[in-house]
């Protein structure tokens, strides 16, 4: 595959998020604090089935788990 990050199971958005985090972290101290606020994400989500709300989960950890799973599939195929 053409992209290493794709083989590792990342989506393009995740790849962008990681890249932008790296850029933000390499900024100057005072600028970094401001910029890192823009990269914060603290959402929760729930899956719904048949009109019932499922468990509330943290979005960040769920995304990571999903991508780790995806990575396994990517290597096997």
């Amino acid at each position: 595959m053409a992209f290493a990050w794709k083989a590792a199971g990342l989506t393009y958005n995740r790849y962008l998020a990681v890249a932008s985090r790296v850029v933000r972290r390499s900024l100057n101290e005072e600028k970094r604090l401001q910029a890192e606020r823009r990269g914060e994400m603290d959402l929760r989500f729930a899956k719904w089935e048949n009109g019932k709300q499922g468990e509330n989960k943290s979005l960040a950890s769920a995304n990571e788990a999903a991508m780790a799973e995806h990575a396994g599939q990517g290597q096997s195929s």
Partner: protein
Amino acid sequence: MLSRAARPALRAGVAAAARPATLNATNAATYATLREIEGRLKSIRNIEKITKTMKIVASTKLNRAQRAMTESRAYGQTSNTVFEQAETKPVEGEGKKTLIVVCSSDKGLCGGIHSGMSRKTRKILLEKPNTDLVILGEKCKSQLGRSNGKNIVLSFAGIGKDVPTFADAQAIADQISLLPTDYSSIQIIYNKFINATSYEPVEIEAFSEEAIANSPNFSAFEIDDEVLSNLREYALANSLYWALAEGHACEQSARRNAMDNASKNAGDMINKFQILFNRTRQAVITGELVEIITGAAASEG
């Protein structure tokens, strides 16, 4: 739209104004009503203080939200230009589902902006009942969860605490693209910011890979098939960010208006009660004087 934002506050005002009138008729000019009126006056004053403060908070937040909105427009419009140039149209696939993303927020006290969006969603659902819903924010979730719970596949919470970030939009876009169903098109419903007092729920389209690949002018761009899914994910995140930021600005301006109206209504009520209070006090004093004079006259005679 201003009148809609003012409605709940107005209703409360009418209900409260109707109450003392009947109360006054039954036991006029007694000490109890005087104290009651005083108590009510005090509580309305407190409410006015609260709504005024909330208005000021919303005003400052609105400035930030509007700045974020103009910045986010660049994201959404740039990515839309690509599809406009390519003349992309949603595919009318048979048996394929549409996904609707509703961008509301967690917080209320901002007039009818959430219910306006829920109403629009319900209207679309009536035409196309086989549509899935992704809901951002608690408010629309509780509204649509009651009526269309079966259509909901995902709901997100924690939106609207602060100005939405692009990281938020990216994470949501990721979770949406991980959904097992293959959607022919994704529609994002959000409140479009027209000016400080008006907004309307509109939809933007986020296209599927198939739709992008089938667009008539697609050859204008040199895109490998492999990159196409990236483009789609990124475009979805862009549109979501745009919708979130614009919805956030609308919410703040709606809240500012709602709190402005509430403060105004509270001011009106304070005036009304002040007059009523003074009259009642006067009546009590007159009553007392009459009693004293009649008493004196009776003992003299």
